[in-house]
Each structure stands twice: as structure tokens, then as C-alpha cells.
């Protein structure tokens, strides 16, 4: 510390000399240019980190699988809400059977976009059409900017995305943001007869999802990929996750 102070004391003597004007312009010019380059590269590097620190909202869904009995109402509500064409689904219920008759158990896994905090679909998008919207708190698509390269569909580890057959752009669940913005819950949550789906802002400490996530043993899909999903399951059956291939 002392040595540093000594050296800083000496500095004014050397810099007291007047700078010639031309030198001054040259130096300030290079300083401005290098600062601009530095700022540019830093902002590019901190792109994701910045977004994370700014997070205001994080829309999330808790699906209580103890209550789900596989009626597929959520799939139908979603289909009619968005007029989703045949063959593609924004929301569906995966169903598996475990064991052999008569000892069989059926498990349900309602599926939708996980609205990850660290979404692989967003990082591969070449036009920033797929983006994480921190104002609204979800992963969304600027449809007019999407060129339909399908890179996000390839990169999504949950098969939640698809190429819209008529719009010819990427499409997926958007947590019914048009409804949420008007203060009502998503269509699938609204229609669920057993109240297995609970929706809210995870960053709001008073929200029901926050309380459920904090007080229950919750699971997410494929946590090993570190995508940080915003869809949480209570009482998830591991066997219902991912594809099953016998080798």
C-alpha cells in the first residue's frame, strides 16, 4: 500500500506539463476509439449476464402431477386458443404405462415450453427472433423477424418447438401472454379441472408458484442440461422424461 501511494504522489509532477494540442487530439481520439471498442466487446460478452441481472419477471408454472389424471383438457384448450393446425402441438400430455398387467401404473406428464432461463433455442437463433423477454418474463418469438431456419427447433432439448405449417415460422407455447397481460391465467391453467396447473411470477415472493416451489419437492425436465426451466413438476416420475430406447 505505501509503495503504491508514493508512486501516485509522483504522478502529478510528470503530467503537469502542457500537452501540445495535436497530441491531445491524437491521444483523446485513440482513447475514445479504444473505449468504444472495449464497451462494444464488453456489451457483447455480457449480453447474457446483463439480461440475468435485469430480470424483473419470471413467469412460471407448477404442475402438480398428484392431481393430474390425464384428461388432455389442457391440450384441447391450447389447440382452440391458438387455432393450432393439425399435427403440431404447443401443449400435450405424455402418457406412459409402467409394469405388466395386472401390476400396471400409468403416469402423466403434461408438456409445454419450459420457458428456460438459459434457453438453448435463444442462443442458436441467428436473428434474435427467439428471445427471452425479461419485461414479460418468458421466452418468446418475434414472428416477423423469424426466417424459418428451424435452428431453434433442432436445439430445443424438449421438442417443444415446431415449424408452424401455415405461418412458416417457429412456433411454441407462449404462456398465453395475450391473456396474462390482461390479467387472466393461460388457457390450459384456466381449463384444468383438477387445478393441477398453477401459474404465476416466480420472482414475486407472494405468488402461489413461488410458495409451491419453495415448499415442495419440485423437479424440472432434464436438469443436467442446465437450461433452468420455469415449468416445475411436483411428484415427477423420472421414467416419464425423455425418449426410451432399448439398446
Amino acid at each position, binding site marked *: 500500500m505505501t509503495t503504491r501511494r508514493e508512486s501516485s504522489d509522483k504522478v502529478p509532477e510528470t503530467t503537469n506539463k502542457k500537452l501540445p494540442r495535436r497530441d491531445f487530439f491524437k491521444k483523446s481520439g485513440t482513447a475514445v476509439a479504444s473505449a468504444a471498442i472495449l464497451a462494444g466487446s464488453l456489451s457483447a460478452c455480457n*449480453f447474457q449476464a446483463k439480461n440475468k441481472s435485469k430480470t424483473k419477471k419470471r413467469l412460471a408454472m407448477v404442475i402438480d402431477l398428484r392431481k393430474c389424471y390425464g384428461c388432455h383438457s389442457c391440450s384441447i384448450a391450447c389447440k382452440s386458443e391458438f387455432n393450432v393446425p393439425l*399435427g403440431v402441438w404447443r401443449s400435450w400430455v405424455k402418457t*406412459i404405462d409402467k409394469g405388466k398387467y395386472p401390476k400396471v401404473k400409468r403416469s402423466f406428464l403434461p*408438456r409445454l415450453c419450459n420457458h428456460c432461463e438459459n434457453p438453448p433455442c435463444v442462443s442458436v437463433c441467428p436473428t434474435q427472433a427467439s428471445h427471452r423477454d425479461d419485461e414479460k418474463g418468458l421466452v418468446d418469438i418475434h414472428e416477423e423477424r423469424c426466417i424459418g*431456419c*428451424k435452428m431453434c427447433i433442432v436445439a430445443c*432439448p424438449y*421438442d417443444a418447438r415446431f415449424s408452424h405449417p401455415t405461418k412458416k415460422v417457429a412456433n411454441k407455447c407462449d404462456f398465453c401472454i395475450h391473456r396474462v397481460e390482461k390479467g387472466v391465467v393461460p388457457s390450459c391453467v384456466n381449463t384444468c379441472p383438477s387445478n393441477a396447473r398453477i401459474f404465476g411470477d416466480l420472482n414475486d415472493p407472494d405468488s402461489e408458484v413461488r410458495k409451491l416451489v419453495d415448499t415442495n419437492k419440485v423437479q424440472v425436465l432434464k436438469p443436467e442440461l442446465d437450461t433452468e426451466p420455469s415449468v416445475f413438476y411436483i411428484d415427477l416420475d423420472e421414467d416419464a422424461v425423455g425418449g426410451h*430406447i432399448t439398446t
Partner: protein
Amino acid sequence: MIDIYYNVFHKVPWDYWIPVYFYFTGLSAGSFVLSSLFTVFGLKQFKSLAFTAGISAVILLLFAPIFLVLDLGQPFRFWKVLVPWYFNPYSVVSWGSWLLTIYPIALLIYCWYMFKENEKMIKIFGISTLPLAIGVHGYTGFVFGLIQARVYWYSAVMPGYFLTSAVLSGIGLVIIITLIKDKLLGGSTLSELFTPLKRMMIVIIMLDLFWIFCWKITLLSGTDEARASALISLNDSLYIFGVLLFGMLIPFFLLIYPKTRNSVRWLVVSSVLVLIGVFLMRYTFVFTGFEIPLS
């Protein structure tokens, strides 16, 4: 015992244009590497090849982006990848789009100076185009190698494997073009370059086999899904016969077997086999990656 009673699978998003596109950029980058042997690395014996290989690199690369645009859902919006403020530094495709724009321009200038026989400018543009050529095909390796969701692709060997197979297909193509040129214009370029081209082909096939070995071994000792994806490819007759046997092992054998290794004819046969093999490699690679269900 687990039975999937109901599930939704979305259809494979990419069409056949995608492997065709990878094939063409690979051919272009491979041809350019051959052309640069003389213009950048100064190997005099390859002088007669430099111009032909350069021109074939340009023509192939003018076609390649067309296939990419054809696969887009919104082909008329392709220019949006080049809007600077839409640029996504995390997206390999973003970088690749810029490479695909700059590389053909650099290549055209390079060929222009080759046409003008301006040695100094050829060298300058050769040196600056070489990293672009490597980038334009190397990035396709990263497109796959960075997708964590698809176990079959998620491997560090991808950029290297893509590059060596690109050079392999490039050599095959240049051999065939030189043969046609010799037949039409009269000349003996191919028989003069017979030994170096043959040796390059042997070395690169060995390198390719090494990549495949590393990659398949890691898959087989990986997770359930990784092992399954490796077994799917090893049970696929198109992969076993098309890519490995006819695409690599038979050409390799023809190039080293004493009775066939000294004939230009068998070199041409190997080149044709290698060209087909590399295309099938791109094809099976892309579509086997989609075989493992994600949901």
C-alpha cells in the same frame, strides 16, 4: 417395463437441402485448400491445379447458399441474418451467414487475380481466403457440435471431422475435374500429380477414420441415448455400406493394394466412391441425429 402410451413428436424440421448444402460448402472449401497448396504454400507441383480448383470452389459456393435459402420457411427473409443489429454472437449460424457472404467475395477476387496472373495479389488473397474457407466449412461442424440436445452430434470432433471430410471430397472432385480437363484439352496433369494426390487421399481417409473411431467410441461409452444413437447408425446399412465400406474402406484399399495403386483409373474410381461416400456421410449424419426422441 415402460410403455409410451401417448406422446407427441414433432416432425424432423430440416429437409434434404441441408445435407446437400453441407456437401457443397465442403466441396468448395476442399477445392480451395487444394488450390492454396500452390498459391499460399508455394508447392510448385500443384501449380497446374490451382486455377481449376479455385474456379470450382467459386462455382460450388455460388450454389451452396441457394440450398440453404431453399430450406428456410421464409426464404425471402434470408437477408435478416445479415442485419447487424439482429446479429447474435452466441449463434453459430449468425457467424456462418457472415462467412458465407464474405468468403465468396474473397474467393472471386482471388480467382480474378489468378486470371490476371498477378502473383503478389494471388498470394495476399490466398492467405486471407484460407481462414475463411476453413471457417465456412468449420462452422457447419460447430452448428452440430454445439447442440447439446442431440447426443449424436454433440461432440468436439465435429469441426475437425467436417473439415477433413471436406478436404477428402475436394480432392475427389478436383481429380475428376482434372481428368475431364485432360480429356477435353489434352494434357497429362492428372498423371503428373498422381502420386501426391493419391498420398493425400490416403492420409485424409486415415484421418477421417480416426475421427469416426474417436467419435463412435465416445458415443458407445456414453449415456443410454448416446449409445443408442451410435447403434442406430451402426445398424443402418446406408451408413455401414455407403459411408464406411464404399465411401472409405474400398477407396483406401484401392489406393494401397499393389495391383491397383499405380493406375490412374483406380484413382478416379476411388474419387467417385469418396465423393458419394462423403455425401452419404453428410446425409446420414444429419438425419441419424434426429432419430433419438427428445420428449
